[in-house]
C-alpha cells in the first residue's frame, strides 16, 4: 500500500502532466538551467495554492524536480532534506507560505545553509500583490514580477532556476509593487519565493 509520501509524489506527476498544455500555450521558452547557475536539487511548492502550482509547473518545465507540501514541512525535512543537506552542494528553491519557509530556514540554519534569495508576496486588499525582494544583485536586476501580472509565479520560477553561482553572496533588498489584480485568490497568509543554499561564506 502506498504511503503518504508516495501518494503525494504520484499526485505531483499527474498535476505536472495536466499543466503542460497550458504552459505550452503561453509560448514561453523552455531551457534547462545553465551550468553556471546554482543547480537546484528540487523545487518545493505548496499544492494548496494555485500560484504555487503555477510556479511548480514552470520549474518542472525547466527540468527541476518538484516536491509538493501542504503547509507542513516535517516529512520533507525528516525523510529528504535531512539526508540531502549532508551534501554542501545541494540547493533547493520554492514557493510556499512564509510559515513553511520559516521552518525550512531554521532547519537549514543548522546545516550551514541560508536563504540567499527571497521574495515575499503579500496580497493587497484590492486584490493586487506586493512583491518584496531580497537577494543577490545579479538576480534582482532581472526580477520584475510586476511586469508579469497574474503570471508572476512563472517569472519567479524562472528566476530561482537561473540564479548565478557568482555573486550569490552580494545581497540587497528592494521592493517591487505589482498591480496584479485577478488570478486565483486562494491565499491570505503571504507566500514567499526563495532559494536556500550553502551559506555563501562557506562557498569558497
Amino acid at each position, binding site marked *: *500500500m502506498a*504511503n*503518504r*509520501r508516495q501518494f503525494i509524489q504520484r499526485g505531483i506527476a499527474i498535476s505536472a502532466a495536466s499543466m503542460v498544455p497550458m504552459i505550452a500555450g503561453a509560448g514561453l521558452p523552455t531551457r534547462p538551467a545553465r551550468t553556471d547557475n546554482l543547480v537546484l536539487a528540487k523545487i518545493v511548492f505548496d499544492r494548496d495554492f494555485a500560484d504555487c502550482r503555477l510556479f511548480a509547473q514552470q520549474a518542472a518545465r525547466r527540468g527541476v524536480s518538484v516536491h509538493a507540501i*501542504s*503547509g*507542513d*514541512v*516535517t*516529512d520533507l*525535512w*525528516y525523510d529528504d532534506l*535531512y539526508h540531502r543537506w549532508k551534501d554542501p552542494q545541494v540547493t533547493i528553491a520554492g514557493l510556499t*507560505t512564509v*510559515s*513553511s519557509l*520559516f*521552518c525550512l530556514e*531554521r*532547519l537549514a*540554519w*543548522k546545516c550551514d545553509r*541560508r536563504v540567499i534569495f527571497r521574495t515575499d508576496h503579500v496580497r493587497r486588499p484590492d486584490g493586487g500583490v506586493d512583491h518584496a525582494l531580497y537577494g543577490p544583485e545579479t538576480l534582482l536586476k532581472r526580477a520584475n514580477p510586476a511586469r508579469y501580472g497574474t503570471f508572476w509565479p512563472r517569472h519567479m520560477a524562472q528566476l530561482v532556476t537561473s540564479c548565478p553561482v557568482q555573486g550569490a553572496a552580494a*545581497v540587497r533588498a528592494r521592493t517591487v509593487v505589482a498591480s496584479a489584480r485577478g488570478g486565483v485568490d486562494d491565499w*491570505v*497568509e503571504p507566500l514567499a519565493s526563495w532559494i536556500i543554499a550553502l*551559506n555563501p*561564506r*562557506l562557498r569558497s
Partner: protein
Amino acid sequence: MNPPGVSAGDFAAAMAAFKEAVGEAHVFTSDEDVALYRDAYDVQWGLPGERQASAGVAPTTVEQVQKVVAAANRYRIPIYPIATGMNLGYGGSAPNLSGSVVLDLKLLNRVIEVDDKRHFAILEPGVSYFDFYRHVQDRGLKVWIDCPDPGWGSPIGNALDHGVGYTWYGYRDHFYSHCGMEIVLPNGELMRTGMGALPGSKTWGEYHYGVGPYVDGLFSQGNFGVVTKMGFHLFPQPEAYRSGTVLVPRRQDLVALVDEMNYLEHSGIIGQPNYGCPLRMVAGEPAVLPLLAKPGGPTDAEFEALASAHRLPCWSCEVQLYGPAKGIEANWEYVKARLAAAIPGASFEDGLTYEFPITAEQRLKVPHKPSLGIPNLELFRSRSALNPNPSEGHVWFSPVIPKSGEAIFEAQRVFADAVRGVDIPTIFGRGPAYGPFSTPSTWMFRAFVLITGWPISRSNPDQNRRVSEALRKLVQVGAEHGWGEYRTPPAFQDDVVKTYSYNNHALLRFQETLKDAVDPNGIISAGRYGIWPKHMRKS
C-alpha cells in the same frame, strides 16, 4: 554592535581567540549570519529595544566550549549559550543582553548513549528531538522520546527552560525527567553533577542525586554555566495506546471532572488529560460576544443555555492511556465507570487505538504525534479553522494555577476581567484571550497552566506595545492572586521574577549571591530570569 562596556580592541581580540578555539568557519560576524540569531517573535522587533547578538560562535567539542568561555572571561565578553535556538515564544535564540555573543551549541550534537533496557539516554545540547527520534527509530530501540510541539528544538535546551511534552506524566516534565549534567563553569572548568561526579560512574543517567546538595536546578532558567551533556529517563515503548473522551453536561461538572482526573492521573492510571470547552468553537459568534464581555462572565444558567442551544456539552476531557492492550482497555472501562458514577449525565466517546510499533503509514496519520513521542512541525501549517489568520509570531503568558475546577473558574474570571477592553486577537483566532471557555494546559502533572498566546507583528509595533502592556498587567494580576508564570520571554523576565518576592526577594538575592561567586565577571547569560551580573544590577 559590540557588547556593552567592551572596547573595540578587546572585542576584536576575543573574536580572534574564538576563531583560534573553534576555527574561522564557526565564528559568525556578518550581518546576514548574526541576523539569524534574532528572536523572530520579539515584541521589540525592529525597534531600538530589540535584543540582538553581536556575533555567534559554534564549538564542536566540549574542549572548544571551555576555550571559548575562558576567552570570554579574559576579555569580559558576555556570552549567551543556546542549544538549537528554537525556544520561540519564550525568547528564541536572542540574548537577554544586546551585544552578547551567542554561544551556539548546535554542532555539539552527539547522542552519547541510549539504553532501552534501563531506559535512559545521555545527550549533547545540539541534538534535536528529530535527531533523537531518528537515532531511536533507526536502531529499533524500545524506548520513546517525549517531545514538545513543535518538536524541532533540543531536549537539553527545552529541559533547561522547563519545557514540556505530551506522553506519560513523569516524562512530560523534561527537567524532572533529566538525570545528571555536565557543565562548563564560567571559569572554564568542567563539572559533572549527580552520579556523573563519580569518575567511572555506572549510573549517571539513572540516579539523580549522587550525594550532597543537589545543584542541577541552578542551571535551568539560569546563568551559572554552559550545560554540555545531560541524562534523561526514557519512557519504555508501551505495548499499546488508547484515547477516549469524557463529556459532561453542566458547567459546575468541571469541578468533579478535574477531581476525578487528578485521581486517575496521580494514581498512574491515565496519561495526559486534555481538557476542552466545546463552546469555544462558537466564541466568535456575534450572539456570544456580549456574554463574553459581561463583567464576571456568564452565570451557570447562561452558560448552560448556550451549550443547550448549540447541543453541546459544557466540558470535555480526552483521556490517554498507555500500556498493555488488555490493561488499558480495562483501565478505560474503569475510567468510564468511575466518571459515570461521579458525574450524572457524563457520556463517553472511544478514541484512537494503536499497538506498537506502528507502521510508517500509521505514523503519518496520527492526529497529534507528540502524544506518541513523534516530533513534527504541523503547528506551523498556517491556516486552520481555529486559526484563520495566522500571526507573524507570538509570546506566551503562562500562569501556573492549582489543579482544580474552582481554580479554573477563578482564573477565567480574573484574567478575563484583566484583559477586558484589550483589543488584540488571540493567536487561536476566536473570541478574547481569556473567558469562560478557557481550559488549562496539562503538561505538568501537579499543576495547570492557563496559557494564552499573544500575537506579534513585524509591521505593527503599536500592537506589540499593547501586547506588552497586557502581559505586564496579567503578570501583576496573576501574582496578586497567587499565580506565577513558569516561563516567560526575556522582555518580561524581570517583571515575572519580581513577583516571586517572598521575604524581600530572598530567592533572587540568594541567586545573585551565587552568581557573584560563580561568575564574578558576569559573562554567562546576563539578565536571564532576572539574574544580572553585579555591575549591571539595578539597586
